[in-house]
């Protein structure tokens, strides 16, 4: 293997003999960073996080330090911290590893974040289907409480903060931070309009609130341990630290892999780390950051100039694994969920599969998303049932364009972006669908992974 992983967050995960209880965690040096942090001024810790440049690992890549800085401290209202563990972006399974296999790392990161922001009460909003994850966290919280790392008078510092595990109930939209807040308040997860409802100002119970992803909060522990400056040296400027990439689909070794930002390329990830495709198969497309990100087509070139004026000319395989490079390639790194598709994949069916997801998960608040997502899904479903029309690609693109930018939350874009890219980049396949005889559209395809996707 040409490229090597750098495991910081996953350092202990999957190591022989490593268990998810507090004794094991402490044997590996656990909670020492929290104890040291409690002796420092909260504002110093916030500064470290700002210096570290950690960007949110949930999807948007917003700098965590800046999020913390936006907290409205003048209001005198209590501050809340929420860990977003509602991992649901299709293709993403990195938080699951951190939650199930090293829960105390998250708890330590959270308590440092809580102390740094002077949080009154913290929550972990975990997706409802992770029954075992919720049990693991509940147990970890009780273990940490018994040792004085959580709850009253943490580590003898006089600072107190409790933690509640709150289970979702199967709604993707709860991963959107204001939808999550509504859900935590006991309501339907209808995302709130921003402004004025920026969580840092008017969040949970209309109080200043921080919502950070699991991976982000785990990074907080390491950033405080090594110092903001040292953390910022990992990766590249503006793309600091390591990232965990979840790889799924048509590769030989799907899994989760941690690299410093830009420490490997998409090609190295697919071919060296994940063992490439099955013998005889050819790469067709890659969804780089969860199903809401725009698809990359094999053979495409991405050309442009960096901010400093130097030009770049990349193939799909050349794209560095970080945040900004995927934006330069016209897509996004999102939650770091790479879905690989080989030449047996029917792109219309793949689009139909994705459309069905976003139609099912639209909360129904905004008309363009509610109606548009269902419309997109109906069109692609019809196409896969043998009734495709040659103008469908244009119709899909048109509907998607009407959703994009016209909704309260990013679910509108999440619905529109995949269609905008798929129906354009694979337009010939969408048109060819119309010429396909009905029986062919409905029949089982031959070949081991040539499964129908809808």
């Amino acid at each position, binding site marked *: 293997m040409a490229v090597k992983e750098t495991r910081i967050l996953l350092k202990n995960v999957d190591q022989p003999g490593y268990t998810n209880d507090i004794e094991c965690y402490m044997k590996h040096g656990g909670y020492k960073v929290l104890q040291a942090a409690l002796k420092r001024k909260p504002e110093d810790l916030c500064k470290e996080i700002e210096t570290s440049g950690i960007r949110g690992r949930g999807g948007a890549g917003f700098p965590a330090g800046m999020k913390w800085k936006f907290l409205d401290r003048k209001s005198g209202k209590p501050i809340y911290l929420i860990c977003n563990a509602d991992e649901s972006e*299709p293709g993403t399974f990195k938080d699951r590893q951190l939650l199930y296999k090293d829960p105390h790392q998250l708890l330590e990161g959270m308590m440092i974040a809580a102390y740094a922001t002077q949080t009154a009460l913290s929550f972990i909003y975990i997706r409802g289907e992770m029954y075992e994850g919720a049990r693991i966290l509940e147990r970890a919280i009780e273990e940490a409480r018994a040792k004085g790392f959580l709850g009253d008078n943490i580590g003898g510092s006089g600072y107190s903060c409790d933690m509640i595990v709150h289970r979702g109930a199967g709604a993707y939209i709860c991963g959107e931070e204001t939808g999550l807040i509504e859900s935590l308040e006991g309501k339907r997860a209808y995302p709130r309009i921003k402004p004025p409802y920026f969580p840092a100002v008017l969040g949970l119970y209309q109080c200043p609130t921080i919502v950070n992803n699991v991976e982000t909060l785990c990074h907080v522990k390491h950033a405080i341990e090594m110092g903001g400056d040292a953390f910022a040296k990992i990766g590249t400027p503006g793309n600091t630290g390591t990232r965990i990439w979840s790889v799924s*689909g048509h590769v030989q070794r799907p899994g989760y892999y941690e690299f410093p930002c830009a420490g490997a390329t998409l090609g190295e990830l697919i071919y060296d780390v994940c063992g490439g495709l099955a013998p005889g198969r050819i790469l067709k497309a890659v969804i780089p950051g969860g199903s809401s990100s725009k698809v990359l087509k094999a053979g495409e070139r991405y050309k442009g100039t960096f901010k400093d004026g130097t030009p770049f000319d990349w193939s799909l395989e050349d794209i560095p694994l970080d945040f900004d490079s995927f934006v330069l390639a016209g897509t996004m790194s999102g939650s770091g969920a790479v879905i690989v598709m080989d030449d047996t994949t029917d792109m219309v069916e793949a689009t139909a599969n994705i459309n069905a997801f976003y139609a099912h998960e639209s909360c129904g608040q905004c008309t363009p998303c509610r109606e548009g997502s269902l419309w997109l899904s109906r069109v692609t479903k019809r196409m896969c049932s043998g009734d495709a029309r040659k103008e469908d690609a244009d119709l899909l693109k048109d509907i998607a364009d009407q959703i994009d930018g016209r909704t309260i939350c990013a679910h509108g874009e999440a619905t529109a972006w995949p269609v905008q890219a798929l129906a354009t980049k694979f337009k010939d396949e969408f048109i060819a669908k119309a010429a396909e005889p009905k029986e062919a559209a409905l029949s089982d395809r031959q070949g081991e992974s040539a499964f129908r996707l809808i």
Partner: protein
Amino acid sequence: MELSPESLQRIEKLIPRYPTKRSAVLPLLHIIQEEIGYISKTSMEWVAKKLDLNPMQVYEVVTFYPMLKEEPVGRVQVKVCRTLSCALRGGYKVCETLQKELACPLNGKSEDGAFSIEFVECLASCGTAPVVMVDDVLHEEVTPDKAGDFAKELKSSSKQKA
């Protein structure tokens, strides 16, 4: 609605942990569904009364979240992931096989009430696709060629339970 003393105790302990009573809606509904299997109108009214809410405020939550059921489901609840990464590795085939072997329609119950099968959206385990949840346990790499045996195991373990 009759809840076990353990569930009632859990509920009493849970409510005061939240800054507002309303935040306890989902946790209460989970506790009720785990014990009774679904959430009836009576249960919703009970929750509303417990949390000083209007029954409508509970009903709108129940109807929003896919995991909350208003009708009884099969004794064993099978959830097959439908989303892309699982589909690319045969999730649809797996779902078809399970329906056939367990004699259970999609999004419905088998005649004897032993099973219900549902297609659900991404279960966040795409690296071990296809995945299937049986009640609260996740089963990984349930590939199309293993689906038949997987169904047989489900059938024999459900008979032992009944």
